[in-house]
């Protein structure tokens, strides 16, 4: 792993939790009573930062309790880091306040944009990969990291189209962003599979080019399928179903190469009962344990 300090450092108002080899899930309020009733699970929870940017009330009460019991990953969805316009300073201030208040184990954002002028589109919108956008996005990451006083993990997007003006591949772009800004990376394996299908490249080639040494978290999720203009599959990053078999296979390959960074199963729509989501995290943990065991045995044989 890299020398970047992804995790929280220093004195804390919360108990220390390790993230080693952990598998977690999105935190959904409809699961709270089931989570409370369960004997303490080994995982961690990820929250969308924006849902906790209100002043007070139940969201903060819930997150405070969860943070006492589990490691928490703070996942920003709408900083618009990939947009051309300056970051929203008010929003950045709210984000920093959450980092300060909850001391999350992981902090992440997306290589995407969601606000243009004053309109918030509530989607992860794409950008061309050029020298100019590289400089701009690196500046934005630097601004976020300076504001919150720590490195973030940047997530690779699901994409559905291309910008002919792009002059570099997504992996080149991400590698250079990480080098310039010092950020870590959140590798969403489902996004790799979705983009590979939609763009017609091999997911394994993408992973071979991806700077795995900078990955501080992995995402898994389910996708749905539509058709493109030519009637061929166009996959949608829908987060509304179990992780696909092909994505599990890619995940196992990634774990074998990248070690076992904390892995999160996202499920944001058509949310199932807690046991179904917990089973997805357990499946991820089983793969992590199996791969790590075989790597250890392999090292023992080689010694």
């Amino acid at each position: 792993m890299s020398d970047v300090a992804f995790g929280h450092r220093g004195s804390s108002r919360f108990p220390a939790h390790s993230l080693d080899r952990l598998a977690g899930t999105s935190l959904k309020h409809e699961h709270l009573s089931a989570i409370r009733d369960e004997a303490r699970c080994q995982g961690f929870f990820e929250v969308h930062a924006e849902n906790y940017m209100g002043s007070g009330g139940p969201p903060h009460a819930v997150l405070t309790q969860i943070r006492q019991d589990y490691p928490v990953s703070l996942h920003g969805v709408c900083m618009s880091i990939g947009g051309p316009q300056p970051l929203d300073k008010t929003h950045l201030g709210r984000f920093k306040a959450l980092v300060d208040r909850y001391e999350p184990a992981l902090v992440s954002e997306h290589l995407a944009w969601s606000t243009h002028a004053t309109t918030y589109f509530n989607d992860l919108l794409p950008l061309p990969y050029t020298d100019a956008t590289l400089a701009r996005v690196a500046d934005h990451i630097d601004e976020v990291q300076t504001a919150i006083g720590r490195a973030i993990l940047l997530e690779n997007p699901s994409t559905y189209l291309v910008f002919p003006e792009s002059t570099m591949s997504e992996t080149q772009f991400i590698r250079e962003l990480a080098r310039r800004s010092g950020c870590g990376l959140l590798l969403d394996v489902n996004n790799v599979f979705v983009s590979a299908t939609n763009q017609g490249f091999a997911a394994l080639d993408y992973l071979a080019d991806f700077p795995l040494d900078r990955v501080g978290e992995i995402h898994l999720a389910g996708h749905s399928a539509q058709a493109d203009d030519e009637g061929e599959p166009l996959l949608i990053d829908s987060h509304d179903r179990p992780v696909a078999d092909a994505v599990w296979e890619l995940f196992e390959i990634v774990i074998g190469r990248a070690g076992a960074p904390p892995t999160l199963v996202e499920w944001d729509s058509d949310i199932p009962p807690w046991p179904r989501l917990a089973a997805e995290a357990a499946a991820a943990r089983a793969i992590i344990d199996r791969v790590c065991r075989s790597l250890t045995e392999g090292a023992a044989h080689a010694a």
Partner: protein
Amino acid sequence: MRPEMQPDVRLDMRHEVPPDRSPTAGVAVSYAAHFAGALLDPGLPPPACVGGPRRKGVTNRYNVYRNNVTVSLINALAAVFPATQRITGDDFFRAMARFYLRARPPVSPLLFEYGHAFPAFIEQYEYARPLPWLADVARIERAWLDAYHAPDVEPLDPQALGRIPAEHLADAVLIPHPATQVLRSRFAALSIFSAHKGDNPPPQIDSGESEDTLVTRPNLEVVATRLPPGGATFLARLIAGDPLGAAAAQALAASPSFDLTANIAGLIEAGAFAAISLGEHDDGS
């Protein structure tokens, strides 16, 4: 029940990019403006700055983003206004929400703050005219969510009023709790809202009876209760900063049956206030 005709609520989507003096300003920054231009307007072709891979078509590909934006914002409104949706049915609500988000897309990434203009939009929405009370139900829902996210403040200690000397009571100023809101309706908006909060079939309601609603969050639970006669005027004057005596006089003028003692007790019990101040007398002496 989907509307056949489309009210003219098309938004002018010509956005200005804010001025920017950073070193990369002006360099290849037009992609967001071009890409965003057609997101909320299905009548426009996909922007020229994007394409499909290997010369494939881009229409369905761009429509993924269009669909994500529109559906997710409709879902956001449905999450803010669940009772309104139960009343109208899903198809009606989603069509109405689609018109609204095209006219008034969010200006903040905090979607729990979206839709403050939705009740006024409903009031003007042609197809909602047979439901004249619907906008007031939506106002209660919007206030409910504001209260849900309001700052955590202890409500006023119920004993606090009793500690004020009787001769100073009329001058006392009650500071509202940040979650507190008053909503007045010519209709039975609170009864209709309450009947459609859950999935149970609603009872028969006389929608023509006017109701005033108090929304509070005394601890972590939002409560919507009906205010007695004169209560809305009384609380509105207190929120505006009037001292107790003046607010009571206004309430009595508005409603001769106004019961001061019952109203104060009810409001304090509901957690409507955060503090009490004696104004010029509140000098600690």
